[in-house]
């Protein structure tokens, strides 16, 4: 069955049911189209497992980060209608003012992350406060009618969810197509609460004891800014009329600033709301936590190289501020890594990896031998060992196991030291190595950090730290090292604690020193002789100059040197590690191509320089100029660049045929008959309509046989 037709644009293909594939073919695609299909199943399984773990971890992070916010919201909701629960009459008195309690939830510009937040919010609310939670989106509610419809619909469905026993009745109601009005809503609420209240309090207690007898109706406006002002105003005014009949609470999701409420709603309307502001965690902090929990840990064997991380962070910072997209990029890099690197099967927990090394095939061993980092390693060995490594698989496997362990240890050491260094550098003015730990991480991953200029200046600044700061930092470092899993750090911790102790002792010493100086000053006061005074003063000055370093300064130097030595020994760039290719994903350009593509540039290069794609020597030409043998569309495009706003089709056609006939080298006399070859005409037509499809030109009515140019500036 073909998919081109003049009467139809959609074609459905349904294979017969027996031929239909059943389940989990994903793994097949993983191995398909690859030469080294062995272990691909294992690789895919590892990949999926890893992704699942990471995904659940991100969800957990999100939950934790939102916890505070949600708790605040819940307490607000509880409080807002507490009167309604206890003394109805009093509450009604208060509500004479007809103010609707409203929570303005400022979520930030990363709109793509909001969906997740709202989802978990409504879950939390349903668990804790009320079964009646309605979320509305602007695009679903172009008018007040739609809004009410949506509201009722969601409430009725909810009601079905809550008490299954009443299902029939509810279905009846919704099928009767009740008129969607506030009156019917309040009637519905009355019936529902009465039923639950009068019917069986005991049953109610057991089934949903968390809810009160009169649970509030919570309406969430997910994207407040996109709602039409009219709809919002009308809804608020109408609901304020009915607020004494049932407890209603609004939650506004706001992406910009709380000011928007007052800009959208006139005073007469906003005065009907009793607004309380809630601020969610900023996306930057969210990202920092995600990076901290996913990347700066040995929990997950998979790692991102410097460039990849840079690409992901750049997309985040310069394009969308979306943590979801960051995680998507992370997912893509996991998939790409496992798909493209045959040795990625070793990218799992250390014990498992060691087991897998034992069962490596010969091909895989060859793969290991081909790794650049492994080659470097081999070259550094003595010649007999080199031969053994390159010829004996069993020996290679042994070595690989130890190397993998080394890599693991490297990571175990790397992260605590990195955090420690970060503690030091964040206390410096102007942050020479970056404010965020991710910047420091990137710097360390890419190159030897201690060779960089920034590091040099950072160390210099460190040598000028005040004592109190230094002590605080050292204490933090001790905490970091003690909490880290690495066993090698017991020495380091001891050393650091020793430093701390010495700082304390120093305090005592300085007291003594002060005593000395005080005494000298006393002496000074005693001497009244001008000559002696001058002499002592000079002496004092001398002593100050000569005694360059106090004990504190010496100690400070020692501390900084110690940190420096830690950095030098543990923060070596990952690329230097043997077998780093197994766990590091480093093809950053793939990520950039797929996530942050530039379709216009691709189109432009294809049109301007077809040689980029068609590797034909005749197409090779200088920059900015194309060969006349190029595809028709390129020539036509090039010619159109020479024109202004309007293009005369006849001129264009003639210019085109000039170029094309020149290539074909036809006899000039044959074309002399003013008639352009039909075929060339046809080719021209095709090229022009292609340009129209691509959006470079459009037909114009300004002049006969003219088209208008839609682009400006050659791109």
């Amino acid at each position, binding site marked *: 069955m073909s998919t081109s037709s003049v009467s139809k644009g959609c074609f459905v293909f349904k294979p017969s049911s027996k031929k239909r594939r059943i389940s989990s073919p994903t793994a097949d695609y993983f191995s398909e189209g690859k030469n080294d299909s062995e272990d691909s199943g294992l690789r895919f399984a590892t990949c999926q497992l890893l992704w699942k773990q990471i995904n659940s971890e991100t969800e957990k992070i999100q939950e934790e980060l939102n916890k505070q916010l949600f708790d605040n919201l819940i307490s607000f909701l509880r409080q807002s209608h507490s009167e309604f629960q206890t003394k109805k009459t009093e509450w009604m008195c208060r509500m004479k003012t007809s103010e609707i309690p409203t929570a303005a939830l400022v979520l930030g510009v990363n709109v793509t992350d909001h969906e997740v937040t709202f989802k978990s919010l409504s879950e939390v609310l349903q668990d804790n406060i009320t079964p009646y939670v309605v979320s509305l989106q602007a695009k679903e509610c172009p008018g007040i009618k739609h809004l009410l419809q949506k509201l009722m619909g969601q409430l009725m469905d909810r009601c079905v969810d809550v008490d299954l026993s009443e299902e029939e009745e509810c279905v009846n109601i919704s099928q009767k197509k009740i008129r969607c009005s506030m009156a019917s809503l309040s009637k519905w609420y009355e019936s529902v609460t009465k039923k639950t209240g009068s019917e069986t309090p005991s049953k109610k207690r057991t089934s949903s004891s968390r809810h009160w007898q009169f649970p509030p109706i919570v309406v969430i406006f997910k994207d407040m800014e996109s709602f039409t002002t009219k709809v919002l105003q009308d809804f608020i005014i109408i609901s304020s009329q009915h607020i004494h009949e049932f407890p209603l609470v609004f939650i506004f999701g706001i992406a910009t600033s709380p000011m928007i409420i007052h800009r959208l709603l006139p005073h007469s309307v906003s005065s009907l709301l009793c607004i309380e502001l809630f601020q969610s965690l900023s996306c930057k902090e969210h990202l920092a936590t995600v990076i901290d929990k996913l990347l700066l840990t040995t929990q997950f064997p998979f790692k991102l190289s410097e460039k990849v991380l840079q690409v992901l962070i750049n997309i985040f910072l310069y394009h969308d501020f979306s943590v979801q997209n960051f995680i998507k990029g992370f997912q893509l890099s996991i998939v790409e890594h496992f798909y493209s690197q045959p040795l990625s099967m070793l990218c799992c927990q250390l014990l498992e990896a060691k087991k897998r090394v034992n069962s490596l095939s010969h091909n895989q061993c060859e793969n290991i031998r081909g790794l650049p980092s492994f080659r470097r390693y081999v070259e550094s060995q003595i010649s007999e060992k080199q031969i053994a490594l390159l010829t004996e698989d069993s020996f290679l496997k042994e070595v690989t196991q130890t190397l993998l362990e080394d890599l693991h240890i490297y990571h175990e050491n790397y992260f605590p030291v990195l955090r420690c260094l970060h503690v030091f550098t964040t206390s410096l003015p102007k942050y020479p190595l970056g404010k965020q730990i991710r910047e420091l991480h990137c710097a360390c991953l890419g190159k030897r950090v201690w060779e960089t200029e920034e590091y040099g200046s950072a160390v210099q600044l460190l040598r000028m730290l005040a004592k109190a700061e230094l002590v605080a930092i050292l204490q933090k470092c001790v905490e970091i090292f003690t909490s880290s899993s690495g066993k090698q750090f017991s020495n380091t911790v001891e050393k650091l604690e020793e430093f701390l102790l010495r700082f304390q002792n120093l305090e005592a010493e300085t007291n003594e020193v002060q005593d000395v100086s005080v005494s000298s000053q006393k002496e000074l006061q005693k001497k009244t002789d001008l000559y002696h005074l001058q002499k002592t003063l000079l002496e004092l000055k001398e002593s100050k100059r000569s005694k360059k370093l106090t004990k504190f300064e010496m100690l400070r130097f020692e501390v900084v040197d110690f940190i420096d030595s830690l950095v030098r020994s543990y923060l070596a760039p990952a690329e230097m590690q043997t077998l780093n290719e197994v766990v590091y994903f480093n093809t950053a350009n793939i990520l950039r191509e797929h996530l942050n*593509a530039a379709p216009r540039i691709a189109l432009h290069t294809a049109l301007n320089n077809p040689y980029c794609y068609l590797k034909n020597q005749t197409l090779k030409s200088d920059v900015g100029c*194309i060969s006349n043998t190029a595809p028709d569309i390129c020539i036509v495009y090039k010619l159109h660049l020479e024109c202004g706003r309007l293009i005369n089709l006849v001129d264009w056609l003639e210019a085109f045929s000039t170029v094309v006939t020149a290539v074909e080298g036809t006899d000039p006399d044959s074309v002399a008959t003013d008639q352009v070859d039909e075929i060339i005409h046809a*080719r021209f037509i095709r090229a022009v309509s292609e340009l129209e499809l691509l959006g470079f030109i459009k037909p114009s009515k300004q002049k006969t046989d003219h088209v208008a140019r839609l*682009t400006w500036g050659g791109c």
Partner: protein
Amino acid sequence: MSQLELKRNKVLEARFVADEDVLKHISDNGGVKVRKDRAQLALNVKRFVKKLENISDDDEAQEILEEQNYVAVLGACAEDSLRNGPSAGGGKIYSFQTPKRSGKMAELASELAQTPGKNVTFDSSQYPEKPASTPQSSKKYSASNKAQLKSKKNEFVSTTPYRLRKRLTAPSLRSDSESDYSASCSEEEEEDKDHKETSDVILDQKTPSKTRAAPTPASKKTPAKKLKEEMMSNLVEEYFEAHSSSKVLTSDRTLQKLQKRKLDQQTLLVLLNKAPPAFTAELKELNQQHESLFSKWMLQLHLGFSIVLYGLGSKRDLLEKFRTSLLQDSVHLVVNGFFPSITVRSILNSITEEVLDHVGTFRSPLDQLDLIMKRFKEDSSVELYLLIHNLDSKMLRGDKSQQILAQLASLPNIHLIASIDHINAPLMWDQAKQSLYNWLWYETTTFSPYLEETSYENSLLVQQSGSLALSSLTHVLHSLTPNARGIFRLLAQYHLENKDNPSYPGLSFQDFYQRCREAFLVNSDLTLRAQLTEFRDHKLIRTKRGTDGVEYLLIPVDNGTLTDFLEKEDEDM
């Protein structure tokens, strides 16, 4: 000699008027006063050049100086003191080409035609011919020289400049009375005269001189590159310059004058099939590169990503191949976005009706979407692959359509793979939609022609589906009474008789009634009116009220179709 000098003067005049013309086009169209100033300026320049001519006969220097003047004139409109300013290099000259000139395209064309695919280098054998193209040469001289040029150039390149010149001049010679180029503003009389007189001279001379200037060492960099650099610098100004005035200077020639019939879709296809395919090997290689990604696409589709293909060239064949090779055993829906009457509704309908076997109608697409989402969420075993060719087509690019499609794509068991072509296609999606789509971008430049995609398009040069109109014409008329058919025939014949009359207003109702009566087709004007109403309902005729208040009847079908129709009718009778 004096005669020759006179001629020279004339030629010189021609050149500067032409420049003036361009100048007028570029700078804002100030009042008459400014123009007069400029005319005077041009006069000054003329005199200067004449003087200069006496001094030096070094043509190249002359040319540069001239250009310099040209630059100066344009740069400092009213003052001509810049004449002895800094000597302009080749770069200056070329950089000044940015303002679009009407002849520019032809120039580039001949340039391109010359630029050999086989890397032929231009040697110094050109230089002796230099005088040939200088403005001082008389027309006759130039022509003879051109022939010489042709013979010389034949040795290393094709003779395009000559042919181009010929082609360019030919139409204007044919239509002697009118200027080939129209500056859309009214010109002063003498200028106008000059302009007319010399328009073909300009065409004659400008092109070859330019094309030959291009390969000279003075302009090592290609003009196009210069062009681009310059563009970057004052892109914004140029944009507004070009859009500030409503006038655009383009040539007035129309396709009709080319005496070329419009091709219809059928013949176009036939002709294109005749055209030799180029770069088959390279294209194949490109395609193979893309095809090797198929299984990766499948993998990523299954992992919850959607795939969007971009890049020059039709991606239809590629997607078709993907479909036939990997999707044969699964439920999939192919959507031709380029189909002119595709709607989101029809996509949703095919999902609900054919994929989900749902019977019933929906109040709105949103309801329909809700049902689809519900069904797909309930039953995770249902999988659907959605292939959309040209997601950015006119019918689908709307915000609402994209929103619905994005929501479809966000379902875990709907796998979307789509292609986009328009340069501004990515602007369709905001952050929210992009995250719903969850795109992975793949560049698939195929260079294959957009045959299917453009076949529906009512292209400018393709005849508007005449066959369709013809069949509808016959269908409608076959259902009518013989008398009614006769009435229409009468009108059609009259229409064809007057096809060469450009001011033909149509047949007035009274005349038509007379004729019908004479042919015994109607007996009262009421019957005729009733009949005409029927025609009008079927859009066979159109009525127009003329200036004198009389009703005129027209057939809004082009003459070719009408002739075909009449012939067919004759056969049937």
